[in-house]
């Protein structure tokens, strides 16, 4: 078991992870400025932000299993940041769509959200991310108590909708969404397996300690 002090996490690891999470955006901005995103930069923006939204959702879901399997309790301290980055990239993805794909054609945007299943599903996922982002702070955790845990279970639904969104927008090659789908399925299965298994006293103790 690798033990890392609170101080190291706070002063070294967290800033490092934070900067790493911003790298995809930085590369995108550099690409835009240097015009190296290829023939269709808007498509590149949509794809990069969409893919990183989905990746951050899956990475966030991976935190708890990784913490349990690798017995690295401090990993939990990154979960909120990773989840918020999923929301951050989703917001960029949505802005790209509204601004550069639709150019603020609100009638067309509403029509898309209502009529095109892949947009309906993507939009639902984005809307569900909003309450999660707004309640991702100590005050809301304290206030909502058990409801907070219930509310944040929505992330599973969001991730499923994200994969569905990807499947439905593909024209013929389903390899990419298939890979994300398999990863999500593994994460969901692990969670289902954990819930059926009665918690051992040791695990209970660790959980209590880490949430205090």
């Amino acid at each position, binding site marked *: 078991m690798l033990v890392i002090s609170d101080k190291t996490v706070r002063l070294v690891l967290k800033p490092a992870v934070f900067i790493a999470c911003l790298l995809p955006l930085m590369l995108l901005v550099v690409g835009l400025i240097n015009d190296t995103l*290829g*023939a*269709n930069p*808007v*498509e590149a*923006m949509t794809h990069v932000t969409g893919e990183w939204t989905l990746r951050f959702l899956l990475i966030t879901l991976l935190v708890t299993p990784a913490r349990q399997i690798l017995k690295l309790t401090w990993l939990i301290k990154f979960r909120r940041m990773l989840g918020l980055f999923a929301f951050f990239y989703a917001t960029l993805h949505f802005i790209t769509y509204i601004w550069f794909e639709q*150019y603020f054609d609100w009638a067309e945007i509403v029509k898309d959200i209502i009529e095109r299943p892949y947009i309906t599903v993507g939009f639902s996922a984005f809307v569900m991310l909003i309450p999660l982002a707004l309640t991702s702070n100590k005050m809301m955790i304290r206030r909502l108590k058990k409801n907070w845990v219930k509310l944040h279970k929505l992330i599973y639904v969001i991730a499923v909708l994200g994969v569905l969104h990807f499947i439905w927008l593909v024209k*013929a*090659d389903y390899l990419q969404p298939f890979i994300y789908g398999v990863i999500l399925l593994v994460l969901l299965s692990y969670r289902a397996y954990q819930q059926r298994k009665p918690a051992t006293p040791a695990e209970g103790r660790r959980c209590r300690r880490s949430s205090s």
Partner: protein
Amino acid sequence: MSIIIKSTSDIKSSDITSKSVYMDRRRFMQQAFASSLLLAADAMLPVWAKRWPDPAQAPFRADDKLTSFEDITSYNNFYELGTSKTDPVKNAAAFNPRPWSIAVEGECDKPGVFDLEDFIKPYALQEYIYRLRCVEGWSMVIPWVGFSLAEMLKTFEPNSKAKYVEFTTLLDKSRFPGQSRRVLNWPYVEGLRIDEAMNPLPIMAVGLYGDILPNQNGAPIRLVVPWKYGFKSIKSIVKIRFSETRPKTTWNELAPDEYGFYANVNPEVDHPRWSQKTERRIGDAFWKPKQKTAMFNGYGEQVAQLYTGMDLTKNF
């Protein structure tokens, strides 16, 4: 002034550096293409010279600003060379479009199998500047080098049963790595109604920007039908068949509710998953809004009469 050149081997390498000889050879190349071997011609051209530096101009020329050579050759939908748009340019080197032969079959009086050079020989090559509108909602303006499809089809003397023309792309995993995954039902097949094919607009293209067709753009020979979505303009053709029944075309068979047989550019009929009202012109700055898509991609004057009385919402 003109120099007489009997055969390609008569050109000495010292001539290549001479500007005046080059200028003459430019002219020579334009005339000689129809009768010379592509490969032999390749060998004698200085590397910086285009094959058809100054091609004769076809009457159909879009006034739009040309899309850059780089964009045309680095952003392609050509699943035989990979499904992402940047795959074809990366995998282009792996595809060798020589040797190449084309089979002409079906309801015609002069079928046969032809070597590419013999196949192209009878036709006058011209430059056609056409808009290309992809079904995905982007567009380009491309200076093709090619010849009239109608003129070409007539030489094979289609009979009265020839109601459709079907085109097929090469099926060969060793040359098209993308075909080793069953993303589409290989080989790629496209088709036109015979009256569409006999319209003066469609061409068989063998080049772009005055030079030989890059592999990622469908070398060595492809179809270009400018009033239809890009997927109709089938690449790397090895077979042309006249038929009485409508060909089973690849995207139409894969998703008939999304990709029609006609696939005419039509801003009024949405793709089920996205609007077709607007298009992004490749090369425009990313902050610029998309532009409006024109009915028949702006070629209505030449082709609208082909569809009189047809419900284009049903026959999309």
